[in-house]
């Protein structure tokens, strides 16, 4: 039985508004690299905030099955994390990567369609919604760790090369980026673990309700292992700085590559994988 419904115009409109606001935030964020004056801080925070508010309303009306809704959820988590890291860790430069990434993800979500394409039995069940939300949060935190690592390496390179341009001026200090990377990884691992556990619990409770593809299983476990390894080297092996940043980037890159490879074997927007 399926109670899938066509995506409403309101959801698409809300996504388009969020896309426009994220796009504007991206333009403001990247303006200094194009020779413009940096935008006032209040604008660089208020605009993604407004975008996130609209996006939250849009996502709350989505049926979280399929590629489009998953990407939309991921983008929302990323923007919320960007705002949180700006507020809590003064990691303002996170938006250099997070804003265009979120814009791209919302754009892709709109292109691939926001209607739940696959079977959606129980897709509005609390367990399932929590599973998707926590998994998306875990992935977004992994992406945030990647962004912090990339910013770290760029700032590291500038500092070592004694170049004092826009990156030196606008990017946060190395220690703060390292701390952001660590916090994102350490918070991301339990979120993803809980997301996976909820999926298992959900599967046991509603067996036969939602089909879990083998590719999804493989990618989920692979992502969990990679994130677990990244946390292990940071927490247990005390990796820090450049080595930890490289590990984060390699891990996130591997997760992304495996996803793309698996998706190529089973193209289509009706399922996340």
């Amino acid at each position: 039985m399926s109670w899938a419904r066509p995506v409403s115009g309101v959801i698409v409109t809300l996504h388009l508004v969020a896309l426009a606001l994220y796009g504007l935030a991206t333009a403001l964020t990247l303006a200094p690299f194009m020779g413009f004056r940096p935008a006032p801080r209040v604008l660089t925070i208020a605009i993604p905030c407004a975008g996130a508010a609209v996006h939250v309303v849009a996502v709350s009306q989505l049926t979280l099955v399929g590629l489009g809704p998953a990407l939309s959820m991921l983008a929302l988590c990323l923007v919320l994390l960007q705002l949180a890291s700006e507020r809590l860790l003064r990691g303002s430069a996170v938006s250099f990567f997070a804003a265009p990434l979120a814009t791209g993800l919302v754009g892709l979500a709109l292109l691939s369609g926001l209607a739940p394409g696959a079977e959606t039995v129980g897709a509005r069940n609390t367990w399932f919604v929590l599973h998707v939300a926590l998994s998306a949060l875990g992935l977004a935190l992994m992406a945030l760790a990647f962004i912090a690592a990339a910013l770290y390496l760029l700032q590291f390179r500038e500092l070592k090369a004694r170049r004092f341009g826009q990156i030196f001026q606008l990017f946060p200090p190395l220690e703060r980026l390292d701390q952001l990377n660590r916090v994102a990884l350490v918070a991301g691992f339990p979120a993803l673990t809980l997301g996976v556990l909820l999926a298992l619990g959900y599967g046991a409770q509603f067996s036969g309700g939602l089909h879990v593809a083998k590719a999804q299983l493989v990618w989920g476990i692979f992502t969990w292992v990679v994130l677990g390894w990244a946390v292990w080297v940071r927490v247990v092996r005390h990796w820090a700085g450049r080595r930890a940043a490289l590990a984060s980037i390699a891990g996130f890159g591997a997760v992304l590559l495996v996803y793309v490879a698996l998706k190529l074997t089973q193209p289509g927007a009706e399922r996340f994988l």
Partner: protein
Amino acid sequence: MTTGHMEMGIKVVGVNHRTAPLDVRERFAHGAHEVPGALARVMAAGASGGVLLSTCNRTEFYLVADDEPALEAVWSLLGERLSSTPSGGAREYGYIARDRDAVRHLYRVSSGLDSIILGESQIQGQVREAWEASRAQAGPVLHRLFQTALHVGSRVRTETGLGMGTASAASAGVAVAGKIFGDLAGRSALILGAGDMAELAATCLSDQGVQITLVANRTQERARAIAERLGGKAVSLDEAWPHFATTDIALCSTAAPHAVVTWERVGTIIGARRGKALCILDLAVPRDVDPAIAQLENVFLYDVDDLQTVAAQATARRRDEIPAAERIVEDETDLFWAWYGGLGVVPTIKELRARMDDVRATEVERVLRQLDHLSPADRAQVEQFSQALLNKFLHQPTIALKKAAEEGRGYGLLEAVRRLFGMEPPA
């Protein structure tokens, strides 16, 4: 309130980094303990208020004074400090700004617009200290002037980007270290060298909460003085090398003719840091640190050229903010001048009316003595007529004076009125 300021305008007389070389400025510099004596001498020459602002870049007397005697006293006081007096005396190195220009000058000084390092913030504190040190002798006009100068400095720093970035090699060093460590509070630093530059940079670090653990120098005496002031320990250079294993920041500014921080001395020690970042700020010329040290992955090495590049970038950005800062200075100068111009208007108008009324009363009395046939009613009519006539005559000058005061032009007009009507300055 007296009207003394009407005859005595606001003046600034002094020297700064544009008009006098360092060795002259050093001689003119006044310590805080010398300020009251110097001001007392100038005030004895006729100034009714004075503030002495003395920093490494300027020595300026702000006075409420008549032109000649007080200014002469300043030049004479400064001239006595010169080892060889040029033909023009101390005035050869100096300048005088009067009235509105003097106000604008102080506002520009407190904003950092007149500093060697454009927009530097240290001057704000120095202006405050000068005002406080001269508080007893400043008088109401200079109190107001210095109070507003601090306000102008704050406005410029908050409303424009004149103070953004870092604009000296020492503060650039702090900024670069901040880009590595983030918050510098609680970080440790060791200082090699005990010269002025080392002390200045160490003070900048200490101001950011960096703990100065060691000051190493060839001669211990000077190192001990800095170490005591900044809370560290004085050691010899050889004792400092092992500390490269633990310190976060190494600030090098010795007068050695060749590199003292060499690969042989600290390479292995730094290698044992297990990846922990080390920021080395080499402020010495010739350089103190072997550039090969920078090859170690966790070492961030910056020399004077690097730090001056950072400082120059900040200065370039600050230059764009000059017009906005100058606008604030101009607006605030207008406000002060309006206040100052209005100060003497009311007493002057009162005095003018009193004088004219005296004349009127005397003349009416004289005329009435000759017209003794007039009835009391007629005499009252004459009295009333004279008062009405006086009011008519004084109406326009009174309005003009009040309006000029509101527009900040009162000072000049008051001078003219007092001269025209022979009103003496009060004692």
